[in-house]
C-alpha cells in the first residue's frame, strides 16, 4: 500500500465577484510510496500549491479522497509536517524556539525530548551557534533552514515541501538542494516536494510528476534513474540534460499566470 494516495481529487475556488467557480485542479490521482521522494513540477498558477495544501489538510476539497496509510485526510495531522514557501517563523522566538514550535503544537513529545530534538535538528540543518538568534538576524537561506528543521523535528511520516527554495538566490538554492538530499538520505522520509523548477525536481526526486495548468492536472510521470548520492555536478551531466528536455517541452505550451 502506498504511503500517500491522492485519488481523483478536484478543488474548486469560488470567485465571488464574478459569481462563478474556477477549477484549481481536476481529477488528480497520484501515489507516493514509503520513503519515496516525489516532486511535482508545473508552471505558476497550475494549482500545485493548492494540491499540497489539500494534502496538508489546510484546504477543504469537494471530490475524491486523500489517504495516508489508508486513513482519510480531513484536516492537519501529526503524521504530516509542512515546509512553507515563506519561512513563516515566529519573529519573537529564537531559532531554537522556532524549531521547537511544531513539536510544541503537535504535543507528541515531552519537554525534555523536544529540547533535545530541537538541538539535534538545529545542528542537522547547519545552524549550530545560531540557537539564540532571532529570525530577523538571519539570511533568507538560514531562515529556510529553520523552516525545514521545524518540520523535520516533528518526525512526520510525510514531509510536505512547498517551493521552499523558490525565494533564494541561485547559489544558495543549489547548496540547499544538495544539503536537503544529504539530510534526506539519513531519514528517508516520504517527501512530496512542489517546485516550478524542472532541474530542481529532477535533481531531488525519485519520481517527477509534471503538472499542467487550467485546470491543474497530471500531464506525465517520469522516473528519475540517477543513483544516489547525487552530486551537484549531476545537473551538468548530458544524461540529466537529456531528461530535462522532454519536461521543458511538456510545459512549453502551458498557459502562465
Amino acid at each position, binding site marked *: 500500500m502506498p504511503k500517500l494516495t491522492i485519488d481523483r481529487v478536484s478543488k474548486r475556488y469560488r470567485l465571488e465577484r464574478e459569481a462563478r467557480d474556477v477549477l484549481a485542479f481536476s481529477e488528480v490521482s497520484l501515489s507516493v510510496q514509503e520513503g519515496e521522494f516525489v516532486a511535482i513540477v508545473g508552471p505558476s498558477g497550475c494549482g500545485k500549491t493548492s494540491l499540497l495544501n489539500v494534502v496538508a489538510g489546510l484546504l477543504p476539497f469537494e471530490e475524491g479522497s486523500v489517504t495516508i496509510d489508508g486513513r482519510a485526510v480531513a484536516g492537519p495531522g501529526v503524521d504530516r509536517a509542512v515546509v512553507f514557501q515563506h519561512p*513563516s517563523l515566529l519573529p519573537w522566538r529564537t531559532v531554537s524556539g522556532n524549531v521547537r514550535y511544531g513539536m510544541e503544537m503537535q504535543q507528541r513529545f515531552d519537554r525534555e525530548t523536544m529540547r533535545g530534538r530541537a538541538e539535534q535538528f538545529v545542528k542537522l540543518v547547519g545552524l549550530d551557534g545560531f540557537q539564540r538568534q532571532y*529570525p530577523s*538576524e538571519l539570511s533568507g537561506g538560514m531562515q529556510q533552514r529553520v523552516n525545514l528543521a521545524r518540520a523535520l523535528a516533528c518526525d512526520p511520516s510525510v514531509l510536505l515541501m512547498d517551493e521552499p527554495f523558490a525565494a533564494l538566490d541561485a547559489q544558495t538554492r543549489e547548496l540547499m538542494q544538495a544539503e536537503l538530499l544529504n539530510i534526506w538520505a539519513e531519514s528517508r522520509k516520504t517527501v512530496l516536494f512542489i517546485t516550478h523548477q524542472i532541474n530542481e525536481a529532477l535533481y531531488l526526486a525519485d519520481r517527477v510528476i509534471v503538472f499542467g495548468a487550467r485546470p491543474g492536472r497530471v500531464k506525465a510521470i517520469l522516473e528519475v534513474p540517477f543513483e544516489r548520492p547525487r552530486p551537484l555536478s549531476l545537473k551538468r551531466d548530458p544524461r540529466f540534460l537529456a531528461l530535462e528536455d522532454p519536461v521543458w517541452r511538456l510545459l512549453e505550451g502551458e498557459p502562465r499566470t
Partner: protein
Amino acid sequence: MSFFRRHEAAILGGASALAVVAVWEAAWRAGWISPLFFSGPSAIAARFREDVVEGTLLADMAYSGRNFALGFGLATVTGVVLGILLGWYRRLRLLVDPFVNALYATPRIAMVPLIILWFGIGIWSKVFVVFLSAFFPILVNTIAGVKALDADLLRAARAFCASDRQIFTTVAIPGSVPFILTGVRQGVAHGLIGVVVGEMFAGSQGIGFMIAYGGQTFATDTLFVGVAIVAFAGILLTWMAERLQQRFSRWRPSR
C-alpha cells in the same frame, strides 16, 4: 564613542531644560512676572514643600494615583481581552463596531456629567472616567494588532495542528503586543486627562480638584504645583510604557 555622544540626549535635553528654568527664575526674581497670573520656579518649589509638610498634597496625590491605577488597570485588562476577541471574531466585531466608533469619537469629557449622575461624586465616578478614557485607545489598538497578524504564521500554526487556544497564546497575543503597548501608551495619556477632569467636575480632593481650586482662589502657586505633578506623572508613566515596549520588541530588527 565619546561620553558626550553616548549621553547626547540626556545632556542636550537637560541643558535646555535647565536654561529655561534659570531664565524663568531670573525673570521671576526681577519682578517681571505678576504672581497673580504666573509663578516662578522657587515659589512653586516652596509651595510644594509647604503643601507636603503642612497641607494635604500627599493625600491628594495618593487619592488621584489610586483612582488612576484602578481605572487604568481595569481599562488595560478589559481593553486587551475584548480587543483580542473583537479582532479575532469578525462577526462579533461587526456587531459592536458602531458603538466602539461612536464612543471612541465622542470626547470623554462630554460624558463626565452623565457619569457623575450614574456613579455619584465618590471615587467610582472618577475611576470610571479614567477607565473610559484609557479603554478605547487600548481596545482600538489591540483590535488593529490582531487584524494585522501575519497570515503565514496563522497558517503555519494550523498546519502543525495548533488548537485555537494555542494559536491565541503563541501567535495572536505575542503578535499583537507591539500594538497593545502603543494602545497602553495612548491610554496613559488619555487616562491622565480623565483623572484630572473627573476631579475638576465633582471632587473634594485630588490633584485635579487642587488645580481647579487653585484657579478659583487665585492661588497661582498651588495651580502650578498641580500642573507640575500631572506633567511629571505623565512623563514618568510614558517613560515606563516606552521601556515596556522596548522590553517586548527585542526580537525586532534594529532599525
